[in-house]
C-alpha cells in the first residue's frame, strides 16, 4: 500500500472554524424572529444560525462578531460566511464583510498500521505526552506550526491547526515518527 509517500494518505478535513465581523450592531431578536433555522440564546447573548448548503452553524453576537463552524474546507467556510452575511443583509442590517479569518482546522487521517503509543511517547519525550488514565491517545504538539496531533493506537490520528497547510505539514512531519513505532500487523 503506502510506503513513505505522504500524498497517498488521505487527510480528510472534517471541520473548519472561521470568524468574521459585520462591522455593525445586530439586533439579535430580529434575527431570531425573522430567520429560519435560528436558535436564540438570550442568557448567553447569541443566536445560532444553521445554513443548509455549506452545512454551517454560525454563532452571531450582537456586536457583529460571528463564528462559523462545520465547514469542510476553507473555501466552503468563506462561502458560507458570505452567504450568512448576505442573509443578514436581507434582514435589514448594514452588513459589511470584514476580517474573515480561518481560526482552526480539524482533520483526521488514518495510518495503515497500528502504533505502539508507549514507544512513541518515549522516543519523543517532551513533545509527546500520553496519559492513559485521562485520554486514550498520545498528544503531540508541534510548536512552530502550532498544530496538535492526537495519535491513537489503532493508527488513526486527528490533527488540529490554524490552517489546512499547517495541518498537511504536520502530518508529513509526524509520519516518519509514527512509522518507526508502528506495530506490524499479524492478521
Amino acid at each position, binding site marked *: 500500500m503506502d510506503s513513505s509517500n505522504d500524498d497517498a494518505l488521505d487527510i480528510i478535513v472534517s471541520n473548519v472554524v472561521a470568524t468574521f465581523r459585520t462591522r455593525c450592531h445586530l439586533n439579535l431578536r430580529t434575527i431570531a*424572529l425573522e430567520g*429560519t433555522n435560528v436558535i436564540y440564546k438570550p*442568557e448567553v447573548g447569541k443566536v445560532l444560525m444553521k445554513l443548509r448548503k455549506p452545512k454551517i452553524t454560525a454563532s452571531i453576537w450582537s456586536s457583529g462578531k460571528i463564528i462559523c463552524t462545520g465547514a469542510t474546507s476553507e*473555501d466552503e467556510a468563506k462561502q458560507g460566511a458570505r452567504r450568512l452575511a448576505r*442573509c443578514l443583509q436581507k434582514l435589514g442590517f448594514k452588513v459589511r464583510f470584514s476580517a474573515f479569518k480561518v481560526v482552526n482546522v480539524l482533520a483526521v487521517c488514518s495510518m495503515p498500521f497500528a502504533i505502539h503509543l508507549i514507544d512513541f511517547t518515549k522516543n519523543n519525550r517532551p513533545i509527546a505526552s500520553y496519559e492513559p488514565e*485521562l485520554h486514550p491517545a498520545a498528544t503531540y504538539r508541534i510548536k512552530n506550526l502550532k498544530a496538535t496531533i492526537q495519535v491513537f*493506537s489503532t493508527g488513526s490520528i486527528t490533527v488540529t491547526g490554524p490552517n489546512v497547510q499547517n495541518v498537511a505539514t504536520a502530518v508529513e512531519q509526524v509520519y516518519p515518527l509514527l512509522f518507526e513505532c508502528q*506495530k506490524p500487523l499479524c*492478521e
Partner: protein
Amino acid sequence: MSSRVCKTCGGSDIDVDQARGSAVCTGCGSVLEDNIIVSEVQFVEGSGGVSSAVGQFVSADGPVKAPLLGSGFHTSVGKESRAQTLQSGKRQIQQLGSQLQLNQHCLDTAFNFFKMVVSKHLTRGRKTEHVIAACLYLVCRTEGTPHMLLDLSDLLQVNVYILGKTFLLLARELCINAPAIDPCLYIPRFAHMLEFGAKTHEVSMTALRLVQRMKRDWMHTGRRPSGLCGAALLVAARMHKFRRTVKDVISVVKVCQTTLRKRLTEFEDTPTSQLTIDEFMRVDLEQECDPPSFTASQHKAKMQQLEQELSRKLDDVEGEISCYKDEIESELEKSRPKLRGIYAAYAKELDPEDSEVLSVASEPEDPDVEENELQAAAQHLTQEFLGQVIQEEEGLGSKTDVGKEEEAGAVKEGSVHQRQVASLDIILGKLPTAASLQQTFIESESSDKPDDEQSESGELDLDGIDDQEIEKYILNEREVQVKTDLWMKQNAEYLQEQKEKEERIKKEKEQGTYKEKPKKSKKKKKELVEASSAGEAIERMLEKKKISSKINYDVLRDLNSRGTGSGGGSSPNRPPSAGPPDARKKLNRRRRRKTSDANRDLAANASLMGKRVRLLISSTPKKKKAANQATDQEENLVTMATDTTTETPPEATPDPKPQTGPTPTAPPAAGEEEEEEEEEEGEGEGEEECVSALQLVGDYGCEEEEVF
C-alpha cells in the same frame, strides 16, 4: 576576622584577641574593634557531664521549625509571602501524603517539586490544592508507587480530569518525564484489597502473567490500566477457585461493569484464552494480536466491501429481470396516480441530478445509521441472494424487497438501478415505508431545487450567492408573527425578569436613588482633597485627576482674586438675616453642600473641567450676579432651617461635631465633612476671599445645573 587595614597608620598587621574580643593594630596601637562577635561553636555541659553544642538547627525553609516559647504553629504576620506559601504548601503536602501513606522521602521530593513550581510562578491562578495534588502524583509516578490519580481525586473530591490537566502542565513545565503507567504496578495493591488470604501472592502472580499477556496482545494501549488489572484479577481469582464477583472487583478497581465486561470479551477473542489453566502457566504463545479497536474497524471495512460486492452482483442479476419489471411497472403506474405525481417530479429531477448526487454524496452524511442499515441490508441480501438465483423468474418478489431496503437505507447514495427501482418500489411497496420515503424525498427535493445553481462546485464570484436560496432563510410576515408568539410564550419568564429589572431601574431613577452609577462615584468622592480654600481644592483635584496639564492655574487663581474684588463688594450688601459668624457658618454650610455637590459633579465629569473653566472665565461677571441671587435664596433657606432637601443629598447621617454645633440638621455629605471643616477653618482666616471663592464655586454649581 578579615585582615583589615588600620585607619590611622595604614598598617595591615592587626592582632585579634578572642578572649577579650578586641582587635588592635600592632603598628600604631589603635583599637579597631572592641566587642567582636564570634561565630564559633560553643559547648555547654549538660546534666550528667554530657557536653553538647549550643545552638539550634535552622532549616532552609525559614524559621518554620523554631516555634519557641509557645508561639506554636502560628504563621506569623511578619514573614514574607513566599515563605508563607511554602510553609502552607508543606503542611498540605504532609497532610495529603500521610493519607496516601507515602514515606517521608516522597513527601520531601514532592515539596521540592512544589518549590520549583512556586519559583516558576505556576501556582498563580490555580488552586493550591490542585497544585499539591499534582506534585504528589508526580512523585508517585517517578517513584513508581501504586497510587492512581483517581485516588487523589477521591481524597480531594475534585474532578480527575482537572487534576490531570494540572498534572500534565506541571510535568511539561518542570520538564519531568514521568514514566508510563504500568498496570503491573497496581496488581499487588488490588490483590491485597480483594482479600485472598494466604494465596494472595499466587493470585497476584497469575494476574501479572495475564496482564503481561494482555500487553503483548495489545489490549493495554489507550486503556486505563485499572480496567486491565480488574479483568486480570477476576480471571486469576477464578483460576484459583476464589469466588469474586464482578461487583467486588469493580468496587476495588474503580471502573464500571461495562468496561470490565468489554475487557473480558476482548481477552476472550485472543488465542490465549483457549489455553487451559495449566497450559497458560507454562506456555507463552508467541503470536501477538492486533489491538481490539483495530480489529473492529477492519471488520467494518470488510462489511463494506462485502456490501459493495453484493450490490455489484445484484446489478448483474437485475439486467436479467428488467423486462419483467417494466411490464409490472407500467401496470402499477396506472393504478397509483397519486404517489406517482410526487415521484414523477422527483423522478424527472433525479435524472440530471443522478450524477450530482452520486458525486456529491459518496460518503453519506450519517455513516453510522447507514452502515447499520447497510449491514442489515447486506445480511438480508446474502440470505435472499441464493433464493434469488434459484428463483430468477420469480425474482421480482424478493428483488423488490431487497431494492426497497436498499433504497430505505441509502436515499442519497447512488446505485445504478435508482430510478427504475424507485418508482417500482414506491408503487409496489408498502405504504408506511413509502410514506417515510416520501418525507425524505421531499426534503431532498426542496434542497435539490436550489442545487440547480450548483454553487457547491465552487462558484466563487463576488455575488456567488443564490439570492433565492437566501430568501428561503427569511420568513415571511405571517411566519414571523407566529414565531414571535411562540418565542414570547417560550421565553415568558426571561422577558418578565427583564421587565421587572427595567421598572426597578426606572423607579430608582425617579426617586433619585438610582444606585448603579452613584456606587462608583461614591468611592471617588472619598478621595477628595483637603484644602484650605476652594480654589486650592480645585487645583489639587485637577492635579490628582490629571485632567489636563494645559489648564492655566494662574488664570484660575486670577478668577479667585477677581471674584474677591466683586464678591467682597457685594457681601456687605447682603441682608444681615443671620448673625455674622453663625449665619456665615450656616451659609457656608449650605454653600459647602453646594460646593460638595458641585465638586462631586466635577469629580464625576472631570474631563469637562477645562471647558467649564473657560466658560466661567468668559461669563464670570454675569454669573456673579446670578450667584448672588442664588446665595440670597440660600440664606433664606438657611433661616428656614431643618431638613429641607434642596438638592438631592442621599448622603449619610450627620455626625455632630463641635464646630458644627449651631448648624441645622441638614445632613452634610459624609465624604465632605473634612472638607467642610477645612473650609470653615479657612473661612475664619480670610472671609472675603472665601466668600468670593464660594461664589465662584457657586457659579460652578449654577453652571452645573444649567448644563445638566
